[in-house]
């Protein structure tokens, strides 16, 4: 995924970031919730039974973890990027152990208060192509010396 050092001058509107394929496993979710420390006992994130009792099809990936995964799409793009802001909308539950595709597309570019920035649409889709999470990232990129 890492494309090397990317500079402000290198990118233009319509350029893509990714795609990146991910699968979030049961073990990764359990590990995340343990670090997160906000949930105790079986929850909709770790227990399929609990999730089904709440009307969900299966255990789901926590929203905070989805945001973290979405942010990795940007931060793994290049060591030169700085993620300024990530604003997402949850469209449908993200299930464990399913292929996910993360994509970005640069939609705006400019210098804001002296900081060269780009804006990027970001999406997380399931294997059917249904967007689970969509959003917008604001990213700083350095200019070439």
């Amino acid at each position, binding site marked *: 995924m890492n494309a090397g050092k990317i500079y402000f001058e290198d990118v233009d*509107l*319509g350029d893509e970031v990714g795609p990146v394929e991910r699968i979030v496993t049961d073990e990764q979710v359990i590990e995340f919730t343990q670090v997160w420390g906000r949930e105790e006992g079986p929850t909709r994130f770790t227990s399929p039974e609990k999730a089904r009792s709440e009307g969900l099809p299966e255990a789901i990936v926590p929203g905070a973890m989805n945001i973290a995964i979405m942010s990795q799409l940007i931060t793994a793009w290049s060591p030169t990027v700085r993620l300024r802001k990530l604003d997402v*909308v949850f469209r449908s539950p993200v299930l464990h152990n399913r292929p996910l595709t993360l994509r970005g597309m640069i*939609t*705006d570019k400019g210098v804001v208060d002296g900081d060269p920035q780009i*804006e990027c*649409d970001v999406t997380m889709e399931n294997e059917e192509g249904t967007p689970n999470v969509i*959003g*917008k990232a604001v990213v700083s990129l350095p200019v070439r010396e």
Partner: protein
Amino acid sequence: MFIDLHTHSVSSDDSRATVEQYVKWVGVLRRKRYRIDGFVLTEHRKFDFDKDYSALAAANDVLIMKGSELDTNMGHFLVYGVTEALTSALDFSNVSMDALDLVKAADETGAIALPAHPGRFGIGLCEFADSGADLRSIAAAEGLNGSNRPGEQERAEDLIRRLGVPATGGSDAHLVSAIGKCMTSFENQVLTETDLVRELRSGAFAPVTLDDTI
């Protein structure tokens, strides 16, 4: 003319695209030789009387019109040609509004209401079409929706065939780069919301994808 009849700006709570960014993206699409003449902002459960995009539209040669996407007891409906008479007659924030009352009120006030993404599971007209309701007052339906999930397109096409109405197209964009993904191709010129309602009632249009415009 190619017009995206279904878009959401940040005025809708689930969109992250500004109108200015949509206009900029239309420029990107045009540089790639796609054809897109304009779009309609169909914000959820509201109509933005106070927003005026005429200067932005003129400066960029992009047609920007306003409409609404309303929640009803028979799924989501797109409304074009919204007037104060219509917003006075109906509470746009009412998520269980009677769909057929909406269609009738739209007809009576010079607007038009048609089912959005009718094949959508849960919130498309397909879910309610076999309820026995008389749907003959529906004049058109959204045939192509850029956010359709697997199976929804086929359900929409089947319902539209059964209704015997013409089909529109819209991207249902909530992000900048989604605008224009699906559009409606009009045989005649559309420059205003009044023109849009007239043409939607004429049936002289067809749904298209962005790739169809090259």
